[in-house]
C-alpha cells in the first residue's frame, strides 16, 4: 500500500502549483475576465424586507443611453435552489420579496456606472407585509408566512429523533447539566467579491464563468432555469478568492448574466459590491440551543438531549442539512450512549443563512464544549482529563449510527495540554489571564451527495503525453485551499513526477468529470482517492510495458524521479517519457480514469444521510487570553492546536488551513456579528468590511500547530480533512478561557466586551440567553441504538403507517 513506502512529495511542502501565478498577479479571478463587446450588469434589489410586488416600471431605465437590456422575473419563472427539497428561489423575484437585497430586476449596460444609474431608475411598487426578524418570532407567528412550503407557518423544517432511552439515562445520572446558549450569525467575508461572466457562442451554447465552489450544482440550476440541456451550458469555475461556503449555492447573479447574454447576444459580466456579498450571505445560522447532559460523578456522559432553533433567513439554501448538522456530530467525539435531538429551522426576512466553514456544527460544538467545562468544574475533574476519560473508541458506531473509523483525539488533547503547560497553569494564572480548552470533530466529506444518485462523488481523468507530461482533469474547484496542488501531488506521487510535470484542469463542466465541489471538506479525501486510482491505472499500463522492455517482473518496477526503473537495479531503467512512448507504441493513446464514492453508512433512518463520512478529523485546542476586567475586552495571546489529519499531504497547506481556521474562529468568538437593525425594517447593520468586524493581523496570536498523523486507511495516502475542523474549538476555548481568567461565563458568541462586563456584574457571573422556546415537537423518530440491538432503522411511526395504509 502507498502508505508504507517512502514518499517523494507527500508530507513535504513543495510550492503550491498556483502559488507563483497568484503572487505574480497572473491568476484570473472572475472579475479579471473581459471579452470584446462585454456589457456590465447590475441587480436592482428590494429595499423592503417583506412585500408583494405590485408593479415594476423599467421604462426610465430602458430609456437611458447606454442601457442595452432590462430583465424582470417573469422571464425566468422556474425556481431553483441548492437542495432538491428547497427549490424556493427565483432569479428575479416577481411575486414577492423576502429580504432587503432580494433581486427584482437586472440591467445590462455599456459600463458599470451606467448600469448602476439605470438600476436606480427602476421603480418597483410594493405592498408591504409584516416582517419577521428572528426565529422565536417566526416560531410564534404562523402568519405572515414567508414561504408557502415548509413544515408549518414559518417553520421550514422541524426534526426530532431519539436514539436509546435518554430520559431513563437522565434518571440514572448523578448530575444533569442544563444550559442555554446562543451562537450569533456571522458571514464568510471572503476577500474576493462574487463575480460572473456569461456569454453565448454563435452556436447558441451558453458559458458561465463564475466564482463558484460548486460548478456542478450551478450547472444543474442554470440548465433548469434557462431550460437548456446540460450539453448546451458550460460552467467554468474561476479560481475563487476564498469561499468558506459562501459560494456554494447557485446564485441569482450567476444565472442572470447568462440570461442577459442570451437576450443581448453580448458577453455580460457582473461583479458584486461588498454590500451585495453580505446580502448573498449563506453564512452561519444564528442558533439558540438548549442542551441537557446527564453525567455520572466520575465524568461519563449518560445521555444528551440537544435542541436547536435556527434562524434560516429568507430562503432554504442548505438549511435542511444545516438543521440536521446542528444535531449530528455531538456523538462522534465522546461516548454518548443515548441521544435525542430536536431542531427547528425558521424562515425570517433576513439574508439567507447557509453553509459556512463547519456547516451547522460550530454552534452545537460551542454549546457542548462550554457545557463540559462547567461539568468539569462541578465534578471537580480537570477539563482535559474529563474529555480524555470519555473519548469515542475507534471503529465504533455511535448512538445515532455514525461510524467512527480512526480517532486521534486523545493524542490531540495530550499535545495541547503538554504544549500549553496546562497542568501547571490552568486555574493558576494571575487574574485576567486564562486558559481554555475545547475539542471538535468534522467530516471528511459528506457521505451523501446533495441530490440523490448512485454515481461517484468525484471523478478524475488522466491524459498521459508522450513527452512525459500528465494532464489531470477533475471538476474540483480551487478556492484557495490548495485543491489543485493536492490533485497534482497525488498524481505526481504515484507516477514519480515533479509537480510541474502535471497540468491541472479543474472545475469545467465541459472538460472535467464531475466532482461535487469544494464543500463539506470533501475534496482531498474524495478527489484524492479518485486521482490515486486514475494514476495507479496509468502506472499499471506504463509499468507493464516498461517491465517487459526491461525483462523484469511487473512488481519490480519503480516510478520515481521522473524515471521508471528496476527496484533491484535502479541503474536499469528509462525516463518516464520513454516509458510512456513504449506503452503508447504498444497499446495506443494512454488515458485513465478514477472515481470515488464514500462507503455506505450504517444508519437508515430519516435524516441519517447527514453526518456520515469516510472518516472524521479531530482537533483539540488550548487558547490563552487576557481579559481586561475594566473594559471586558479580550486579547488572545497564544493558541496551541493539534489536529488529527491522518496524514498531511502538503504540510504547509495543512498548517495554513489550521491557522486559517484559528483565525476565522477567533473572529467568530470575539467580534464577527451579522447584525440587523430590527427597528429599521431589518436592514443589515453594517454590510462593509470596515464596520463588520473581523480580526486583523494585529489580533492574530501566535499559533502552535501540531499535526497528529496516523494514516487512515480510507483517506488518500491516509489523509483526513483539515479545511473546517480546526475552526470549531476556537469559540468554546475562548469562552472557557474567559472563565479561567475572570470567573465569568458568557454563553454566547460573539463575546462582545459589554457581555463580559454584564457577566462580571451579574449575581450568577453569567451573561447569555435565559429562555428556550417550546419547539412544538409532536412526533419523535425513535431509533434503537446498536447497544440496544437496533439495526439502524427507525420503526415507522404510527402516523406514517396510517398514511401508508
Amino acid at each position, binding site marked *: 500500500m502507498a502508505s508504507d513506502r517512502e514518499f517523494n512529495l507527500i508530507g513535504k511542502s513543495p510550492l503550491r502549483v498556483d502559488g507563483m501565478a497568484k503572487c505574480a498577479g497572473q491568476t484570473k479571478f472572475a472579475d479579471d475576465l473581459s471579452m470584446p463587446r462585454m456589457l456590465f450588469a447590475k441587480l436592482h434589489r428590494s429595499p423592503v424586507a417583506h412585500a408583494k410586488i405590485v408593479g415594476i416600471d423599467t421604462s426610465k431605465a430602458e430609456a437611458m443611453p447606454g442601457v442595452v437590456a432590462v430583465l424582470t422575473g417573469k422571464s425566468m419563472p422556474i425556481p431553483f435552489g441548492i437542495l432538491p427539497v428547497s427549490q424556493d428561489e427565483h432569479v428575479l423575484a416577481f411575486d414577492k420579496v423576502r429580504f432587503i437585497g432580494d433581486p427584482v430586476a437586472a440591467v445590462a449596460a455599456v459600463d458599470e456606472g451606467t448600469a448602476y444609474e439605470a438600476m436606480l431608475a427602476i421603480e418597483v411598487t410594493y405592498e408591504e407585509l409584516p416582517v419577521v426578524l428572528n426565529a422565536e418570532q417566526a416560531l410564534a407567528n404562523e402568519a405572515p408566512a414567508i414561504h408557502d412550503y415548509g413544515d408549518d407557518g414559518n417553520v421550514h423544517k422541524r426534526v426530532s429523533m431519539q436514539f436509546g432511552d435518554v430520559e431513563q439515562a437522565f434518571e440514572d445520572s448523578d448530575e444533569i447539566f442544563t444550559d442555554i446558549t446562543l451562537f450569533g450569525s456571522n458571514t464568510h467575508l471572503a476577500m474576493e467579491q462574487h463575480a460572473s461572466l456569461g456569454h453565448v457562442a454563435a452556436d447558441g451554447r451558453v458559458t458561465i464563468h463564475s466564482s463558484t465552489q460548486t460548478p456542478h450544482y450551478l450547472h444543474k440550476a442554470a440548465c433548469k432555469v434557462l431550460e437548456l440541456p446540460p450539453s448546451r451550458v458550460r460552467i467554468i469555475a474561476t479560481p475563487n478568492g476564498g469561499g468558506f461556503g459562501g459560494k456554494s449555492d447557485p446564485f441569482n447573479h450567476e444565472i442572470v448574466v447568462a440570461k442577459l447574454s442570451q437576450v443581448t447576444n453580448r458577453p455580460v459580466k457582473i461583479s458584486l459590491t461588498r454590500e451585495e456579498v453580505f446580502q448573498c450571505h449563506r453564512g452561519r445560522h444564528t442558533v439558540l440551543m438548549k442542551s441537557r447532559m446527564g453525567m455520572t460523578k466520575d465524568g461519563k456522559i449518560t445521555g444528551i438531549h440537544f435542541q436547536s432553533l435556527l434562524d434560516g433567513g429568507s430562503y432554504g439554501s442548505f438549511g435542511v442539512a444545516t438543521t440536521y448538522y446542528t444535531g449530528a456530530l455531538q456523538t462522534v467525539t465522546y461516548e454518548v450512549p443515548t441521544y435525542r435531538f430536536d431542531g427547528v429551522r425558521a424562515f425570517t426576512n433576513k439574508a439567507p443563512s447557509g453553509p459556512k466553514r463547519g456547516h451547522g456544527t460550530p454552534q452545537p460544538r460551542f454549546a457542548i464544549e462550554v457545557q463540559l467545562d462547567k461539568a468539569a468544574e462541578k465534578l471537580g475533574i480537570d477539563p482535559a482529563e474529563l474529555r480524555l476519560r470519555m473519548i469515542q473508541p475507534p471503529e465504533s458506531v455511535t448512538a445515532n449510527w455514525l461510524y467512527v473509523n480512526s480517532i486521534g483525539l486523545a493524542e490531540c488533547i495530550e499535545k495541547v495540554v503538554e504544549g500549553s503547560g496546562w497542568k501547571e497553569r490552568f486555574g493558576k494564572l494571575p487574574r485576567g489571564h486564562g486558559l481554555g480548552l475545547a475539542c471538535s470533530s468534522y467530516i471528511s466529506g459528506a457521505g451523501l451527495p446533495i441530490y440523490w444518485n448512485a454515481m461517484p462523488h468525484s471523478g478524475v481523468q488522466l491524459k498521459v503525453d508522450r513527452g512525459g507530461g500528465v494532464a489531470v482533469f477533475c471538476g474540483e474547484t480551487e478556492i484557495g485551499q490548495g485543491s489543485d496542488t493536492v490533485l497534482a501531488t497525488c498524481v505526481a506521487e504515484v507516477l514519480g513526477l515533479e509537480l510541474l510535470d502535471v497540468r491541472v484542469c479543474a472545475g469545467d463542466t465541459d472538460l472535467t468529470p464531475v466532482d461535487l465541489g469544494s464543500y463539506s471538506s470533501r475534496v482531498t479525501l474524495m478527489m484524492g482517492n479518485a486521482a490515486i486510482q486514475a494514476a495507479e491505472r496509468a502506472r499499471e499500463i506504463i509499468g507493464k510495458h516498461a517491465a517487459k522492455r526491461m525483462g523484469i517482473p511487473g512488481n519490480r518496477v519503480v516510478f520515481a524521479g521522473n524515471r521508471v526503473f528496476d527496484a533491484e537495479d535502479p541503474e536499469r531503467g528509462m525516463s518516464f517519457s520513454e516509458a510512456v512512448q513504449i506503452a503508447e507504441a504498444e497499446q495506443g493513446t494512454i488515458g485513465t480514469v478514477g472515481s470515488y464514492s464514500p462507503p455506505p453508512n450504517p444508519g437508515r433512518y430519516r435524516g441519517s444521510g447527514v453526518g456520515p463520512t469516510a472518516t472524521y478529523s479531530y482537533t483539540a485546542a488550548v487558547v490563552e487570553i487576557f481579559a481586561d476586567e475594566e473594559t471586558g475586552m479580550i486579547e488572545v495571546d497564544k493558541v496551541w492546536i493539534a489536529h488529527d489529519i491522518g496524514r498531511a499531504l502538503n504540510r504547509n497547506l495543512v498548517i495554513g488551513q489550521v491557522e486559517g481556521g484559528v483565525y476565522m474562529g477567533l473572529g467568530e468568538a470575539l467580534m464577527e456579528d451579522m447584525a440587523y437593525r430590527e427597528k429599521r425594517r431589518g436592514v443589515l447593520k453594517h454590510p462593509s468590511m470596515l464596520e463588520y*468586524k473581523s480580526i486583523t493581523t494585529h489580533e492574530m496570536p501566535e499559533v502552535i500547530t501540531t499535526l497528529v498523523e496516523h494514516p487512515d486507511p480510507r483517506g488518500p495516502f491516509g489523509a483526513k480533512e483539515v479545511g473546517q475542523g480546526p475552526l470549531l474549538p476556537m469559540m468554546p476555548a475562548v469562552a472557557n478561557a474567559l472563565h479561567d481568567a475572570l470567573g465569568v461565563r458568557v454563553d454566547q458568541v460573539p463575546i462582545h466586551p459589554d457581555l463580559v462586563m454584564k457577566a462580571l456584574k451579574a449575581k450568577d457571573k453569567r451573561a447569555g440567553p435565559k429562555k428556550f422556546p417550546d419547539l412544538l415537537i409532536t412526533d419523535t423518530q425513535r431509533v434503537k441504538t446498536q447497544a440496544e440491538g437496533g439495526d439502524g432503522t427507525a420503526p415507522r411511526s404510527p402516523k406514517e403507517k396510517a398514511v401508508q395504509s
Partner: protein
Amino acid sequence: MMRLPKFTWRAPETVAEVAKILHEEGPEAKVVAGGTDLYPNMKWRVETPKTVVSLRKVEGLTGIDWRDDGSLRIGPGQTLRSLERDERIAAELPGLHTAMKSISTPLLRNMGTIGGNLCLDTRCNYYNQSYEWRRSIDFCMKCKGDTCWVAPSSPVCWAVNSSDGVPMMVALGATLRFTSADGEREVTADDLYAGEDGRAWMTRRPDEVMTDIVIPAQNGARTVYQKLRRRGTFDFPVLGVAARIVMNGAVQSVDLIIGAVGPVPVRAGKAEELLLGSTLSDETIEQAAALAQKSATPLDNTDFAFPWRRQMVPVFVKRALLEARGQV
C-alpha cells in the same frame, strides 16, 4: 464594485486659485487632499460634489516647521505618516504622535493628510452606507431625509466626530488658519469645533481652505491620547481622550478633551476644575474620571453597544491621566 459618481476635476496650484474656485462654484465644490474620507463618501453618494478641487499641487500647504518660540506650524497637506514619523513631534508632543499613529492603517496614513483629518466629515452608521442601504431606511436627516434614526425626536443630527486629530488639537490649543475669497482668518480649534449638529459641526465655511495649523509652544506640558476601538488597526475611534497637563508639583493647567462621543469633541470642564491644583493622586483621578463621564453621552451609531461606550469613558479618562502622571 462601487463607482464614483461623475464630477469635474480641478487641480489649481495656488491657494488663491483654490479660494477663487470655491467662491465661484459655491457649496457644490469640495477640496480633496488624500481623498481617504471624501472618495468613500462619494461612492456612498452621501457627498456628491460637482467639482472636486485637488490640493495636491497647491503650493504652501505642506511643511513641519518648528519656530524659535517653540511653536509648530504644520501644513495641512502633510500626510499622517509624516507626522507620525517626525522625531521631534514624538519627543515633544507624545499625545499628538500617539493620535497620528493610531489612525487607521499605514496604507491610509500614507494617503491621508492632517488637513483632511481635521475637516473629516462626521460619521454615523446610518449615514456611512450605500445609497441603496439608505433608501431602505428612508434616508436620514444628514443626507436626503427628515428624521434622525439615532434619536428620532431630535431636531439635530448626532453623527460623530471620529477624528483622532481633532480632540488632540483642541487639547493642544492649536490655531487653524483659513483662506477664502474674502481673505484669511484664524480660529482656535476650540472655536472651530463649536457646532451642535452633526451636519454643521465646524464653523468653517464651505468656501474656506485650511492653510496652516499652528500648535503653540508647549513648554513642557504633558500630552497624552487614549483611543478606544475594536481592533489594533483600521478602526475609527469610538472614544478618544486627549489630555494636556502642565505639572509643577501640582497641576498648573489642564485640558481634558473627549472625542468621538458626539458631533464635536467635548471638554470635561468639571473634571478639569477638580484636577487643577491637584497632584493627580489616585483618588483625584478616580473622581475626575467619574465627573468626565457626565460630559459624554454617546449614542447608538458607531461600533459597540453604546451604554458600554459610556461606561468606558471614565476608564479611558483614568488611563489618560495615569499616563500623564507617569510622563516626565
